[in-house]
């Protein structure tokens, strides 16, 4: 009965009285007193009288016997639907008026049923067709999903895989997207016996991948990736991870948490913005004037840095034939297709600068500035602790000179997607990069990364720092510019600016985790008063909601209301 009622919709467009006002038409739900429901399409400008004649086509109650009720009101024939505030998807109740009591329900029901079933085959088939195609869609999704989850799993491990698969099969990518958005579906698929046996057979998976020419090409180009994909144990591990949505969700939660932590600190957002303004823009400016950086080095500390770096590179031309400073920095502006930045870059490059910076922060501000720039790492507590472990620049130097280390770094760096993958695992880094699109672009530029991390550059920079150190120290003690120190002649304001900047950064990032020390009443004072105004009077509950939503009033309200419903 209900089905029959549903299928009888949308016949109204044939109705002669309705012909003129179709463009502004909306769908209205109708409920009859006998329980039938259906929808009609009508213009809100039509009068109730006209509307009743439309309804008479869909149910057997003659127009003159219909009583229409909307929002507790009985609709009058000469009024328009609009005048009652009718809107799309609203419901009108239809009651038969002035009819003999006994005859009302039965004929109405049967007549509607016959009208729907017999008189309107088109809509019925339409409905079944809809169902059929839905099933087909679901099935297709399931089928493709099997493959997709495989690939997405591999992608999340192997880095390059998912992107390239996406490029190859756009519809597959869609499926994949759906899957990642629906962890339950993913889990279900991954838990099916077929999938299980598939996963236990890495051979099969590998042959699956090898049968994809694009995949093979990637593997040919990236021996490291091929190695990863050829390792059965890694494959199994990945699939395991893909099968366990909890694990994935946990990871994502961490990321979100870290981001909201940073943003919810009173200074957090400002910190990110300052970083952008103080680091990014000067850096970009510096890159644009990279060519004639020599003269401007005093006014823009970053320009000096880049200029120096460029000089170093040129001197190393025999080893790095095609890369000069300006080229490297020019690469920044080039469009980048890689989706995410790379943390390894940070680790590698950051190590190189910060390790020497640590013992003497004041003297090495410029160096750390570069480190921070290239690598986006200043102020990251994790990084700092890492660097604290290597206080000695000589030690660092040795490490960097170790061919194995540099080789490792290079293999990692040569595969941007692998690095992106790593970045995803570091929530703090990611949040930093997410808020800093330019930084991300920079980090995504493999050319720049390679250059920054090439052993030669690193050595040069180390040497530079070491030569800079005593000079700067001297400078500061004598409080006078050293005429004979061409590398160490940035003006002191620039230096101070940099120092302040990194001081800020450090403080900001430290204060982020310490956030809970501020009483939430204070932290969310404005939000709390807003909630009060809305009528949420339980302060503790409000605070709890605000905390959970990082101070977002809207989300907090949703949460408070949702709380009650469950």
């Amino acid at each position, binding site marked *: 009965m209900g089905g029959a009622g549903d299928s009888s919709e949308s016949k109204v467009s044939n109705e002669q009285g309705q012909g003129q006002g179709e463009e502004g038409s909306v769908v209205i739900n109708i409920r009859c007193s006998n329980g039938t429901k259906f929808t009609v399409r009508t213009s809100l400008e039509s009068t109730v009288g006209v509307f009743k004649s439309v309804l008479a086509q869909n149910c057997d109650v003659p127009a003159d016997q219909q009583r229409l009720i909307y929002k*507790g009101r009985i609709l009058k024939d000469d009024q328009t639907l609009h005048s009652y505030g009718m809107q799309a998807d609203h419901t009108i109740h239809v009651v038969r008026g002035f009819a003999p009591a006994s005859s009302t329900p039965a004929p109405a029901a049967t007549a509607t049923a016959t009208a729907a079933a017999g008189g309107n085959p088109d809509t019925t088939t339409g409905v079944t067709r809809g169902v059929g195609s839905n099933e087909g869609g679901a099935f297709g999704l399931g089928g493709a999903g099997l493959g997709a989850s495989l690939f997405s799993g591999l992608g999340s491990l192997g880095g390059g895989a998912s992107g390239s698969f996406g490029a190859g099969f756009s519809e597959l990518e869609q499926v994949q997207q759906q899957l990642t958005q629906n962890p339950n579906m993913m889990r279900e698929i991954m838990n099916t016996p077929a999938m299980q046996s598939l996963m236990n057979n890495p051979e099969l998976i590998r042959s699956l991948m090898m049968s994809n020419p694009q995949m093979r090409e990637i593997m040919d180009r990236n021996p490291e990736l091929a190695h990863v994909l050829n390792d059965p144990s890694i494959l199994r591990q990945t699939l395991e991870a893909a099968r366990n949505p909890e694990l994935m969700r946990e990871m994502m939660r961490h990321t979100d948490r870290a981001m909201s932590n940073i943003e919810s600190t009173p200074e957090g957002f400002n910190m990110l913005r300052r970083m952008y303004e103080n680091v990014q823009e000067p850096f970009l400016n510096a890159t644009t004037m990279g060519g004639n950086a020599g003269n401007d080095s005093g006014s823009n500390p970053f320009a000096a840095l880049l200029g120096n770096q460029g000089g170093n590179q040129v001197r190393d031309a025999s080893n790095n034939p095609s890369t000069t400073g300006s080229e490297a920095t020019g690469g920044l502006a080039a469009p980048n297709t890689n989706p995410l930045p790379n943390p390894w870059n940070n680790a590698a490059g950051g190590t190189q600068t910060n390790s020497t910076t640590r013992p003497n922060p004041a003297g090495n501000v410029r160096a750390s500035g570069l480190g921070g720039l290239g690598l986006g790492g200043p102020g990251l507590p994790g990084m700092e602790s890492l660097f604290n472990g290597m206080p000695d620049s000589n030690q660092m130097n040795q490490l960097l000179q170790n061919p194995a280390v540099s080789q490792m770094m290079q293999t990692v760096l040569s595969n941007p997607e692998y690095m992106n993958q790593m970045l995803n695992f570091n929530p703090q880094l990611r949040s930093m990069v997410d808020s800093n699109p330019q930084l991300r672009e920079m980090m995504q530029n493999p050319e720049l990364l390679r250059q920054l991390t090439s052993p030669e550059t690193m050595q040069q920079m180390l040497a530079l720092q070491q030569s800079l150190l005593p000079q700067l120290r001297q400078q500061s003690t004598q409080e006078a510019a050293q005429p004979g120190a061409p590398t160490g002649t940035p003006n002191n304001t620039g230096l101070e600016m940099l120092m302040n900047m990194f001081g800020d950064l450090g403080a900001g990032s430290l204060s982020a985790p310490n956030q809970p020390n501020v009483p939430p009443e204070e932290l969310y004072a404005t939000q709390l008063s807003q909630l009060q105004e809305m009528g949420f009077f339980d302060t503790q509950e409000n605070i709890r909601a605000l905390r959970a939503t990082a101070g977002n009033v809207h989300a907090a309200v949703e949460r408070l209301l949702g709380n009650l419903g469950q």
Partner: protein
Amino acid sequence: MTLGSGGSSVVVPRNFRLLEELERGEKGIGDGTVSYGMDDGDDIYMRSWTGTVIGPHNTVHEGRIYQLKLFCDKDYPEKPPSVRFHSRINITCVNHETGVVEPKKFALLANWQREYTMEDILTQLKKEMATPHNRKLVQPPEGTYF
């Protein structure tokens, strides 16, 4: 942190509650035999409401449409709204002179809880019409008002 951790101690503020009810009324989510909506869409306090109850089958009320006025004061839903029949009706819980539903004779209003809604009131009134002592009562002519 699960949703349940806050318990059910959260109190839905009046306006949120009324907006919920308004939406339910417009979309007709309820059982379909009652209907309700706001009298004046511009009243930001959402105080004045109109409701209809369709007379239940197998009673003298069958086929009749009863119109009611509901008034939700500022203390709703802590306190019940005042409910008054606009259409004339003869049932025990309704004052014959004024059409007011008398809380003393109508349990839902007498034992009001803030979870109750206007829809509950209308539905309960419909059930009241079908009770043995009300279903056979002689009714005033249809279309007359208090």
